[in-house]
């Protein structure tokens, strides 16, 4: 965990509401897949937690959806803008359990944290299958990037306007050794029910601090109370207790 000044080097729209931002900073360390950063924005009190899309030493890419005041404000940031960012937050995905044929399941704006994961799994020589789910054709992003890594990519849309009609759970491959997923909670619940192996889920929650101080993002798990920002955002399938 570090607090640092990062400079925006690129900020462009991928779809009508999804943006990709590149950030650079000299002392920036490579982030782990599944980790997030917490960004301070002018005029807003709370930082905005955004998952890491891609990262290497000195640079960082995030993909975010303009949903509320903070993320809408982010879309207006131009190259050269300096941001105060807390980096290296959260536990991230554990690659050790992937096996030879890991499956990655991403839904909507839950797709981004899977990219750095896929990249590292491919570097380890694993055969990676990816299923990306969206509501409709206009919202699709990331297909080309995952394919360029050498992943076997399937895209689903709920309305059938692109790829396979349905949800990510309608496109699960026959064989996979383990899975990693991130997406809206209804999707995560469906993935929990539909998968045959163990796996890891990345959760989101409204956060106060992002580094474990305020207890704002706590959840109950089989192994006790956890903070999404600290012991999460990635939880193992076996420890998840769904609320309600």
């Amino acid at each position, binding site marked *: *965990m570090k*607090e640092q000044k990062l400079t925006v080097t690129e900020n462009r729209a991928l779809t009508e509401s999804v943006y990709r931002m590149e950030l650079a900073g000299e002392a920036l360390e490579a982030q782990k897949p599944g980790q997030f950063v917490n960004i*301070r924005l002018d005029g*807003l*009190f*709370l*930082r905005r937690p955004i998952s890491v899309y891609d990262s290497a030493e000195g640079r960082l890419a995030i993909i975010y959806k303009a949903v509320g*005041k*903070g993320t809408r404000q982010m879309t207006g940031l131009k190259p050269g803008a300096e941001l105060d960012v*807390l980096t290296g937050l959260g536990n991230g995905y554990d690659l050790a359990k992937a096996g030879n044929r890991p499956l990655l399941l991403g839904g909507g704006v839950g797709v981004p944290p899977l990219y750095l994961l896929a990249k590292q799994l491919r570097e380890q020589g694993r055969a990676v299958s990816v299923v990306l789910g969206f509501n409709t054709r206009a919202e699709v992003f990331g297909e080309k990037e995952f394919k360029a890594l050498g992943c076997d990519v399937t895209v689903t849309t709920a309305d059938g306007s692109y790829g396979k009609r349905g949800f990510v759970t309608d496109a699960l491959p026959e064989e996979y050794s383990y899975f990693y997923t991130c997406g809206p909670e209804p999707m995560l619940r469906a993935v929990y029910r539909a998968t045959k192996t163990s796996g890891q889920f990345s959760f989101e*929650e*409204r*956060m*106060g*601090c992002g*580094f*474990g*101080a*305020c*207890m*704002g*993002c*706590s*959840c*109950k798990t089989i192994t006790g*109370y956890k903070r999404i920002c*600290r012991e999460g955002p990635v939880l193992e399938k076996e420890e998840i207790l769904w*609320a309600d």
Partner: protein
Amino acid sequence: MGRLTTTLCGIELDNPVIPASGTFGFGYEFTQWYDINILGTFSFKGTTKDPRFGNPTPRIAECPAGMINAVGLQNPGVDRVISEELPKLKEVFHKPVMANVSGFSVADYAETCARLDGEAQVGWLEVNISCPNVHGGGMSFGTDPKAAAEVTRAVKQVTSKPVIMKLSPNVTDITAIAKACEDAGADGISLINTLQGMRIDLRTRRPVLRNVMGGVSGPAVFPVALRMVYQTARAVSVPVVGMGGVSSAEDVLEMMMAGAAAVEVGAANLTDPMACKRIIEELPEAMDRYGIRELSELGGKN
């Protein structure tokens, strides 16, 4: 004695800056950001007799110049605070710590305080009768002078440590509550806890917080807090700890000019993990700017 030295209920502080309960955990989370021994002290996470998960999420919302929380006193319970958190804290913090206590009955408060009275590292007991986010406890003791006095008396009976009663701003006359606590034996008063508030999500048309209402903190509440500290410091003769939206060295000075002996910093720790370090470092320069040689000049009762 340095320029920043102050005294709180007979215990000397290197400086008046105290991270507020609920924004600093049990101290441990901040050791990765800076050496927490630079602090005057800190008030640890509100502790209850039994372990609590707190309220369902979302528990946090943004508001203009601040935030709203409805965490609801998540804590591991006094037994585990004593057996796990305090031994861990001893490794990284070598000053007296302020123990923050909450409860759901007078007996709860007394039992938790009695347990913490036996802990050598606990310097002060800060008794929270002002949590707006729990039902059947917390704030209900802090909005009625009789109940506030009853909790104060019960706690004073079980401890020899200084007892600081933490008050709620959600009252008509803060001085009536403060005086009731003083008359019942309180050694100090701290204020303010959060102001009750809420937000509605325009997209869902429902409250952002699952608890519907929560407590507002951050710079937005600073003038309200300052006013209440000013009123309270004039109404009682015990030391007053000021808090509410403090986020700069100037805010600390303003609180002390209003009559605070020491100053707690809350929400600022969450958005800037280095907030208290920065404030302590900026204090001497801010004092120079306003012609303050030593903080002891500022007149808060100690």
